[in-house]
């Protein structure tokens, strides 16, 4: 519990800095709004259409694969901390685990889940 005090301070500083910057600029900054200034900024281009378009399923697929590899990485933390005491058995356990998942990664790759080429996304 004690070891988490720095994290708490860190969170406090982060939130404080973000909130402080917004509030200070709100109070100190001059505000002369014009139509140009309050328009949504998109790299200097005039904004076209609605931001709420239906997204391609491919984004979901990437998010799904990310979630699965995130779970995989989560298993790494306890392994890395206990690595010295687990010895070679633990090492090969993890190698097996990884090989199985690398198989899945190759499968996902070969199936073209990461291809964003020729075809337009959407619809």
């Amino acid at each position, binding site marked *: *519990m004690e070891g*988490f005090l720095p994290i708490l301070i860190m969170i406090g500083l982060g939130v404080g800095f973000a909130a402080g910057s917004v509030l200070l600029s709100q109070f100190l900054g001059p505000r002369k709004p014009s139509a140009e200034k309050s328009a949504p900024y998109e790299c200097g281009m005039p904004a076209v259409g609605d931001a*709420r*378009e*239906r*997204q391609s*399923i*491919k*984004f*979901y*697929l990437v*998010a*799904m*694969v*990310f*979630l*699965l590899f*995130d*779970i*995989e*990485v*989560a*298993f790494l*933390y*306890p*392994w*890395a*901390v*206990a*690595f010295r*005491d*687990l010895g070679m*058995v*633990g090492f090969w*356990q*993890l190698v*097996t*685990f*990884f090989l*199985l*998942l690398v*198989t*899945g*990664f190759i*499968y*996902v790759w070969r*199936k073209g*889940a990461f291809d964003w080429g020729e075809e337009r996304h959407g619809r």
Partner: protein
Amino acid sequence: MDALLFWILAAVAVVASLLVVGQRNPMYSVLLLIVSFCALSGLYVLLGAPFVAAIQIIIYAGAIMVLFLFVVMLLNVPTEDPPTGYHARLFGGAGPRRFGAVLALVFVVELAWALREMAGTTIGRGAPSSVYDIGVRLFRDYGFAFEATSLLILVAMVGAIVLARKEPS
């Protein structure tokens, strides 16, 4: 100090969760759910389970919320339809809402029962809590389950690809 932190985090979690339900815009609901998850993570730290706290942030706030966000974006529902006469017809509304209300009731009863049963017992005495303990237990005692998890993840990967693939036409 601990008690103060507990009340702050609990309040944040409860308020954020209530706002998740109360929001009309599903996008805001998802973002508020992240706030709730972060507060829960803090509660896990207070319970002496730092690994669960880290997992809560890494997997729930990091990956599962991304999935939720993409579901919202895939379905593209700008706002929920305001239910008419919501309070009056909480249990008498349309099918899905009535189902939700019944489900909520079941959860509350279940929670009350669980809390009553658990009162006086100390939870998690002797259970591994530190990341090191979890590592040792996971790889020594539950090695097979660990390897089986990788198969489960593999199946999930293949399933996602098969479900989302383009129908050959």
